[in-house]
């Protein structure tokens, strides 16, 4: 279709918070979190907002691509935990890079990086003059976590991931699904102080129905991977890596089992960073790329799911 990835980058805060550290704050322990979620530690920001994390990831991706920021024709970013609704994260990253290209955010929670890639593909098709697009997923998700709720605060982490896309033919196929509703995953905003508004304030944190999320995630990963393989007349042996959203190790393991795919095919780093929402796929992709285990010409599948509910997957030739 319309691009290839020429650079990846990530940035996470320096503050490492272990499961034992969290056990000092909420009633939990390392064994429970490790077994049920697969996270050993995560990063929580002490002095960087989401746009600042995103800017550093973007700079790392730009350096990796070996280009000048001025070459970028558009910036698309995503977050659920930005320090501002306006300016968008993309606008703040554009400002930080000191460039003047168009910039906007796309909202699709944990699936957002896939939606950013699809948006970029559409813009490459629409604007023949566009040569390079920067995509960034960035989260200071600790800002929307309820640190008295042990069922959610142990899962997530802060971080940012980015990729530089260049006009090309390596975005081979994609599938995106939305089942709108707020009963399974919801991140509420502050209602404001209008004296006229009567609806009850929902606490402005992440609310998640664990079992329903698990079911949705496993089903969507399985369906999306199957669709991409069948539609492109491929078998799993043709795929070098699957890079899934790092939501919960058990989601990945159970999806692998249902699909009859070896767990080792799924790149996982959730144990180090937790669930970083829109940043998890680009962080994982950057670590995979830098590991030396990804070669030019390899076919990979990226897949994600989350609030919306939304889920998406794409097939890329590296």
């Amino acid at each position: 279709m319309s691009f290839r990835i020429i650079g990846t980058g990530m940035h996470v805060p320096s503050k490492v918070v272990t499961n034992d550290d969290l056990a000092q704050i909420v009633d939990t322990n390392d064994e429970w979190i490790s077994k049920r979620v697969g996270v050993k530690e995560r990063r929580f920001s002490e002095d960087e907002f989401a746009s600042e994390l995103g800017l550093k990831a973007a700079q790392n991706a730009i350096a990796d691509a070996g280009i000048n920021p001025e070459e970028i024709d558009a910036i698309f970013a995503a977050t659920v935990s930005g320090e501002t609704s306006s300016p968008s994260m993309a606008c703040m990253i554009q400002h930080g890079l000191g460039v003047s290209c168009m910039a906007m955010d796309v909202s699709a929670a944990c699936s957002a990086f896939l939606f950013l890639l699809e948006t970029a593909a559409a813009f490459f098709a629409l604007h023949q003059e566009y040569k390079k697009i920067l995509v960034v997923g960035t989260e200071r998700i600790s800002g929307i976590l309820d640190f008295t709720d042990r069922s959610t605060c142990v899962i997530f982490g802060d971080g940012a991931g980015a990729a530089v896309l260049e006009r090309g033919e390596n975005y081979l196929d994609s599938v995106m699904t939305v089942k709108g509703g707020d009963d399974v995953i919801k991140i509420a905003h502050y209602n404001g102080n209008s004296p006229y508004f009567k609806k009850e304030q929902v606490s402005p944190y992440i609310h998640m129905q664990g079992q329903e999320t698990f079911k949705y995630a496993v089903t969507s990963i399985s369906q999306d991977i199957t669709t991409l393989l069948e539609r492109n007349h491929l078998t799993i042996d043709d795929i070098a890596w699957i890079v899934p959203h790092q939501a919960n190790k058990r989601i990945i393991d159970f999806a692998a089992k249902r699909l009859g795919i070896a767990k080792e095919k799924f790149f996982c780093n959730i144990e180090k960073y937790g669930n970083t929402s829109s940043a998890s796929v680009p962080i994982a992709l950057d670590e995979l790329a830098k590991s030396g285990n990804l070669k030019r010409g390899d076919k990979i599948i990226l897949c994600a799911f989350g609030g919306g509910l939304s889920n998406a997957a794409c097939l890329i030739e590296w």
Partner: protein
Amino acid sequence: MVQEKIIELLAEATDTDAAEITADTAFADLGIDSLDLTEMAMQLEEEFDIELEMKPEINTVGKLTEVVESLRG
């Protein structure tokens, strides 16, 4: 048939001898958590072509067997 399948899935998930699991076995006694139950529910849905919603009151092998059998009609 339904109960045998449930016992088989539980034995696999918990590394327990299937002979030790009966209709009266409570899920809590096997040390499994809500995600284990969700995984089992999804496998039963596939096996018996049903839609199964796990509720807290479905807490033993026998009760789950009854629910699955009623859903199969």
